[in-house]
């Protein structure tokens, strides 16, 4: 299995679109019930967004909760989160992060190629400012997450093969 290095974003617009889409995914995902007061988005690895995420979700609410954006350089630094945006350089690190996210019912998102095929839930690629979404539905169900049909309808969906 070969992990590909995440491509650099072509321009600021695509980065901004990614930042926007991360929040929009939340509208189509249902998490297990929790009593946490904040909706937490954690960026794991290199922060491509600079301050864009903070600006975008400042004073915003997702799932009727105020949004809190956190940044973690390593997996050890990741606290409880609802969305884990994984921007790690190595495939092994990303796999660890995927396992971690699955154990803690986090929605894992990445722009890395092969992310969904390797157990990540949402792989997001921006091509000419248009989103290409791949969803590993089995991984979402294993994480205790439910993804709404409208999102599934526009995405390439990976499902566990029936025995």
């Amino acid at each position, binding site marked *: 299995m070969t992990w590909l290095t995440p491509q650099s974003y072509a321009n600021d617009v695509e980065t901004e*679109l990614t930042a926007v*889409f991360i929040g*929009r995914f939340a*509208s*189509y995902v249902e998490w297990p019930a929790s009593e946490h007061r904040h909706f937490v988005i954690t960026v794991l690895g290199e922060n491509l967004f600079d301050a864009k995420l903070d600006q975008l979700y400042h004073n915003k609410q997702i799932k009727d909760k105020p949004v809190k954006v956190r940044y973690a350089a390593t997996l050890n630094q990741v606290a409880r989160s609802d969305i884990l945006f994984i921007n790690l350089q190595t495939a092994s690190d990303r796999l660890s992060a995927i396992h971690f996210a699955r154990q803690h019912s986090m929605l894992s998102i990445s722009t890395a190629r092969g992310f969904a095929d390797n157990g990540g839930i949402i792989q997001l690629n921006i091509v000419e*400012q*248009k*989103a*290409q*979404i791949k969803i590993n539905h089995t991984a979402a169900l294993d994480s205790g997450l439910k993804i709404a049909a*409208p*999102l599934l*309808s*526009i995405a390439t969906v990976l499902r566990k093969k029936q025995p």
Partner: protein
Amino acid sequence: MAMLNRLAIRYKLIILLGLSGGFALLISSLIMVSSMYLTQSKSSMQVLHQLTDVISENMQAALAFNDASSASKILASLHANPHILLAIVTNNNGQILSQYQPNFLQAERAQIHKQALEQILKERTPQQPDQLLEHIQPDWMGVVKPVFFEGQAIGTLTLLSDTQIMWDEFRKFVLMQILASALTVALLLFLSLKFQAIFTQPILNLISSMRTVAQTKNYRTVLESDHKDEFKHLYEVFNSMLVDIQERDDRLFKLATTDALTGLANRHHAMELMNTIINRAQRTQHPFGLIMVDLDFFKTINDTYGHQTGDLVLQETAKVLHDSAREYDLVARMGGEEFLIVCDDAPLQTCIVIAERIQQNLANHEIEYAPGCKLNVTASIGVYSSAQNPAETSITAMLSAADAAMYQAKSAGRNTYCVA
């Protein structure tokens, strides 16, 4: 209007009923057709709204992630609806994310629709979740619906469809309306033809009766009517008028045929009746007689007792003559103190019996011209019998003969009779 005046009442009624019904039908049809157009256009627009709602719901995710490919797939499902002319999805920057245009639609036509749509959007742009734009033209209708994500507009969905279904339904309705109207008008005319008789028949009956009365002069006719409405009143008035005419005729007839003083037939009427009696007698070869009576010394009575007594004498003499003659004899006053009795079916002997009875009754009849003052009158009588003069056919000659016999009785000393 002049032409209408020349028409018979029955046709006027038919035209009136037909026009009234026709106008009522026309107005109701116009209202129905207008209402149908509004309902149908509203219904078609509602269908387009529902389709827009469904598409926009499906389009939400595609717009949220700027996914043109998914948007195109969703719009491609419109292919199943042959009435959709154009569908466009734009993002919140106004850029077209995807559009659908059926293959059968000519590019030129599609361009026209787009330009019309742009014009509409230029004038108004929906900003609220429940704010829709809709526009209807004779050949197309369109809905512009904003697509919202998390309460924020992320694009718009525009659907344009043709109005073929609406016009098809409308045409069907108008056709049905025309058929229904034609049937109603036919029924109306049929009923008008039937029911006009309710109004015209009594009038026609009345006209017919009036013509009959005018021709027969039978003013004793009584018109019967089963109606309980104004026609009954009309018939009653007409019957009342006939009674008035009959009474007037009776009075005129009496004035024309009767002597006002004595109540006997006057000379003119006597001549007419005498003519009839004599003609019949000659036809049946039955004998008849004329008795001419002239009061004796009547001038002296007038001069002595006055004209009032003279009139009384004439009236009393008339009564005596009437009582002396047979029931079917004609008694008439010919003028002054001269009277005539026409005895139908009477031989000479019968005439003589009547003449003698007159003399006897006059002698027995005292006339009280003042309280306690009485007088008797006598008369000279000339008797003419057809049996004695079979060759005579002229009434004037017969009267002259009776008159001559009467003067002969005068010459013989009065209060007697002579036979012509």
